[in-house]
């Protein structure tokens, strides 16, 4: 019943988190890394392990905003034949079991553009996707995807960076929906550590101008960071750290070992714990 009050899984989840008085834990996984079956198993295990929101990376040959960990993940997924259709198949499979955890696709624009934006958002919505983050599609260029996405009921999530100054911020917030993704470091994914004090300033400035939830990502790999950032935002995203854990469980030929899925999910539980502990303590 409650969920029906909200237009989307995303809105429902952020409302539920707000009611719980805590930030959500957002996990990132590159679809098809190291193969489709392993991705499906990790995805299926995410919600129980502690993921409140899931970002599923669509592999791309040239991930310009990503550091070495996610670059390599993209390479492994493509090498094993992951495609856009394969990504949507993974989502469809995930949705047969799990209907409340929002799933956002994150990627670069070219594969979407080549498939045709309108056709892609329709297929994504039908598969059970709730939103899109397209790294290299800034507000100045995103109308051609945002309009069909909105029409299909998908949120196109905007990014806000430390470099987004006060003059520019209104441009980014105009037409924003779903939530805002605050990029915690001025750099690529997984490269440097997000400094809570610096991030706090940026998130505060952002929150003064918007009522949308804010998720913070890039450079977050330690429980202490999750805890600190969880106190200032509605979501905390961990990506490269999960991928590094995944890589530690590959055999020398790059194939998954049996410990891979439980080990990655363990890390999700460990990293998300501070958010939940905060909740139980405050109660």
């Amino acid at each position, binding site marked *: 019943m409650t969920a029906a009050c909200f237009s989307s899984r995303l809105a429902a989840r952020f409302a539920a988190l707000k009611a719980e008085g805590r930030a959500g834990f957002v996990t990132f996984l590159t679809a098809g890394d190291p193969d489709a079956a392993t991705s499906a198993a990790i995805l299926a295990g995410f919600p129980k392990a502690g993921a409140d929101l899931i970002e599923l990376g669509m592999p791309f040959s*040239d991930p310009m905003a990503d550091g*070495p960990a996610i670059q390599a993940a993209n390479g492994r997924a493509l090498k094993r034949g992951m495609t856009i259709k394969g990504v949507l198949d993974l989502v469809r499979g995930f949705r047969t079991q799990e209907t409340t955890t929002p799933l956002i696709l994150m990627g*670069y624009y*070219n*594969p979407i553009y*080549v498939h045709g934006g309108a056709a892609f958002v329709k297929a994504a919505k039908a598969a059970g996707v709730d939103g899109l983050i397209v790294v290299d599609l*800034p507000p100045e260029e995103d109308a051609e995807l945002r309009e069909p996405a909105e029409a299909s009921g998908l949120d196109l999530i905007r990014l806000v*960076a430390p470099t987004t100054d006060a003059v520019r911020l209104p441009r980014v917030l105009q037409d924003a929906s779903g939530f805002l993704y605050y990029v915690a470091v001025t*750099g*690529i994914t997984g490269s440097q550590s997000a400094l809570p004090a610096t991030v706090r300033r940026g998130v505060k400035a952002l929150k003064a101008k918007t009522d949308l939830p804010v998720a913070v990502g890039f450079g977050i790999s330690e429980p202490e960071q999750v805890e600190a950032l969880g106190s200032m935002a509605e979501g905390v995203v961990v990506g490269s750290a999960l991928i590094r854990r995944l890589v530690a469980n590959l055999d020398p030929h790059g194939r998954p070992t049996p410990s891979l899925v439980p080990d990655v999910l363990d890390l999700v539980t460990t990293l998300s714990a501070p958010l939940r502990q905060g909740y139980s303590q405050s109660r």
Partner: protein
Amino acid sequence: MTTSLSFQANTFRAGPDESGHFGKYGGRFVAETLMPLVLAVEKAYAAARTDPSFQRELDSYLEHYVGRPSPLYFAPRLTENLGGAKIYLKRDELNHTGAHKINHCMGQILLAKRMGKTRIIAETGAGQHGVATATVAALFNLPCTVYMGELDIERQKPNVFRMRLLGAEVKPVRSGSKSLKDAMNEALRDWVAHVDDTFYIIGTVGGPHPYPMMVRDFQAVIGREVRQQLHKAEGRLPDSLVACVGGGSNAMGLFYEFLDEPSVQMHAVEAAGLGVDTGKHAAALTGGSAGVLHGMRSYFLQDADGQIQEAHSISAGLDYPGVGPEHAWLKDAGRVTYTSATDEEALEAFQWCSKLEGIIPALEPAHALAAVRRLAPTLPKDHLMVVNVCGRGDKDIFTVAERLGVKL
């Protein structure tokens, strides 16, 4: 309301529009972290472009440091050998550093200085743009990092050493296909992590707006000189222009001046590698399709799923799976004829020009010369054809020797 300039009929020289689009191509497809910086470059360039003192300073360096104007040379033996069109060579290989790249490097570093930037980065394929960037960075005493694919480092050793002599740090790029597109990815990653102090000197008419326009403007000196020089020599306009295209900077530089002269035909020659139908080539316009990469919408070599494919060419400078957005627009508009030449044809043209005219061209313009060999014999003797020899071939002698089975 976004401005949408109509590029129809009246002029081919009005682009890009205010938001950096040439028709549907171009634009600014970069991550939000870079967007404010890209807008700052745009603003700084818009101010510099209309500032006479900026142009005066640039012109002075072009004359006294680069050695412009480069000669326009009538090539009697090439002309005689082909028995058709009268062939003129625009000698941009005689510029300081041996290629046209120095034209846009000089312009960009003056802009970097104007913006108060204290560190320079660049990507390079053949090494010509890297050498030109390292050169201007040395001249203006700015630290410089050049990203270069590991494969290109291997095949362009002399230029790597040159860059190091000039004081630049050459960082090998081991990701992806280990060539130019990956070097550009890595330069973008560096830029996003050093937005405060770093200026990215892009080596072609590509990347996010304003780069395609800015690099074109800095290269347009080539065409302006050709107009004057040919007027002096022949008293009229050229009938055709020929240039090679990787990203397309030298071709835009030659063509731009003449885009609105309907009598001037333009031929742009892409690298067909082993042949466009083999899949092993770098001809984005001939064998690619519209896509988005490196900040721009343009033509790219890609698969049906939008994954960018590796380019193949004997010439490291043309070994890029995309092309500048203005070329994409000119192709769709039908103003420029896009054609291609294979590795084999370029090798033959390389030797042909060296032996007949005493000019060793780079492998990049050897592709343009290969097209000249096809075109000129079909044209009348009073047809004036200008070919841009955009780089000299010294850097390529190892590659060519290996292909000819000669041990150096």
